[in-house]
């Protein structure tokens, strides 16, 4: 398929990226080339082939339902946030738009 600048704008929005006009021009060209490369996969008949998601042979790895202490305390993990911490929680901007 031929990707247009509007496609790229739409994809960027889905990916939570804001692109400059220069980036849109560049990525439209780049993504076009990459999709041309990967579209050759359609020439392979896979109608009778199962998909491979991973190769460990492991299925349903589980463990005893016990609380374990991880390597770091909750407060140490919170401390890596660049946002303000209040009452052991991260304070983010409003999810419902501007104030």
């Amino acid at each position: 398929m031929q990707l247009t600048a509007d496609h790229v704008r739409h994809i960027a929005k889905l990916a939570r990226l804001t692109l400059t006009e220069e980036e849109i021009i560049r990525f439209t060209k780049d993504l076009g080339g990459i999709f041309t490369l990967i579209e050759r996969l359609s020439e392979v008949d896979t109608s009778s082939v199962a998909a491979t998601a991973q190769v460990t042979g492991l299925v349903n790895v589980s463990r005893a339902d016990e609380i374990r202490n991880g390597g770091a305390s909750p407060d140490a993990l919170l401390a890596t946030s660049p946002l303000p911490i209040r009452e052991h929680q991260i304070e983010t901007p409003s999810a419902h738009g501007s104030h």
Partner: protein
Amino acid sequence: MGATDPTLSGLTIAEASRRLREGSMKAVDLTQSCINRIEAVDAQLNAVICKTFDRALDQAKKIDASPATTRAPLAGIPYLTKDIFCEEGVPSTAASNVLRGGLHGKDYIPPFDSTTTRKLKEAGAISLGHSNTDEFVMGSSTESSCYGTSKNPWDTTRVPGGSSGGSAAAVAADESIFATGTDTGGSIRQPAALTGTTGLKVTYGRVSRYGVIAMTSSLDTIGPICKTAEDCAIVLEAIAGRDPLDATTPDVAVPSYSGLLEGSMKGMKIGLPREYMADGLHPEVEAAVKAAVKAYEDMGATIVDVSLPHTKYGVATYYVLCPCEVSSNLARFDGVRYGSTSSPHVSQEQSLVEYYERVRSGGFGAEVKRRIMIGTHALSAGYYEAYYRQAQKIRTLVLKDFTEAFQKVDLLLTPTTPNPAFTIGSKTSDPVTMYMEDVCTIPASLAGVPALSLPCGFSKDGLPIGLQIIGPAFEEAKVLMAGHQYQKITDWHTKKPTL
């Protein structure tokens, strides 16, 4: 006490460990020798992006105070950590501005160790700091790093490969005794080939990935970059095995890899996949690999022609699976739970979505944005079956190629890369040309099998050439043995660049 012996940083793990255990060398002197070497040559290489020298010297002193004879093989051995591993108390940034504080803020500093970092620490290995990588390990040259590109010690106008290019350049230049790396589509093997070092990509699941920032979860692996196959065996022994913190590590016994290096090539069958010796292979790479094949024949191995017919779809399959998983894995870098403290400050009129967009757009570089967008598009409604599902099915066919080949042969020999190291900047304008760098390494990644890259010659311009030895799943011992036997009769791995 006299000045530190400058040749110490050039030792292998095996030799340094022997000297430390017999008491003829101190860990402090070995560590100081690496530090001095970094201070002397890294301005030319940009391989080391975070230095924790004081901490390293403190640790070395503790090792020296312990009884020499009871030490583990890695006790007192200095190494560099690829900047994708979380190391407690040390900036760990994936070479990305999303996690790097830069001039005005603070880097992301994890409050925990990756399992590999923890195991190496427990074995007494000494981390000197972090080595450069492509941003979020996306690249084959380190040119996408937010710290700037690393240089190849054999020719500083050329790339050291990537993404583990900082690790490979540092080991090649004797800045450290070994380094950790990650390999998703070739990120250990390709830089090892381009720098004349020896790098091991392990079986998928052989080494825990806990605490290593994820790129492509269905393919990512952890492994060492060293000066010899023997050293790779020593490191692998320390870091392999099941980990309750990583559910993708099967409970397969960890053999004494370093104790299994003295096998014989007699009676072994080695396959030469004809698809790898095809058009586009540099004539000097072809000649060096053919000479290595001859060396194996002389050691008693039988060489067999084999075919891996789906090789030509490897790169395209990878560039669906990888970006799709990237778009999902990198969604967590939204400036909420972690991020540099220079992430844009929240203003009153900003919504959460605007905040995400500002953090991500300002923090991610071009290659990361490209892959996030390819993946976002390929996974979106109406495209999933045609791209991701189809790529997963072709992955099955690639895996079947290897399974069938390993019914006929013990190991496969191929070039690691089609060309020696390329010039900095020569592939950055066209991402597809850069992606083709991994044409020889991607298929083994898709199949999840182990592969070693080791030096097998030099081009007439003095650039290293890599040989790839691929083995069946969990047969690292066989791969390392074959590498070690080759290094016993050749001296390519002992050559050093002039800096």
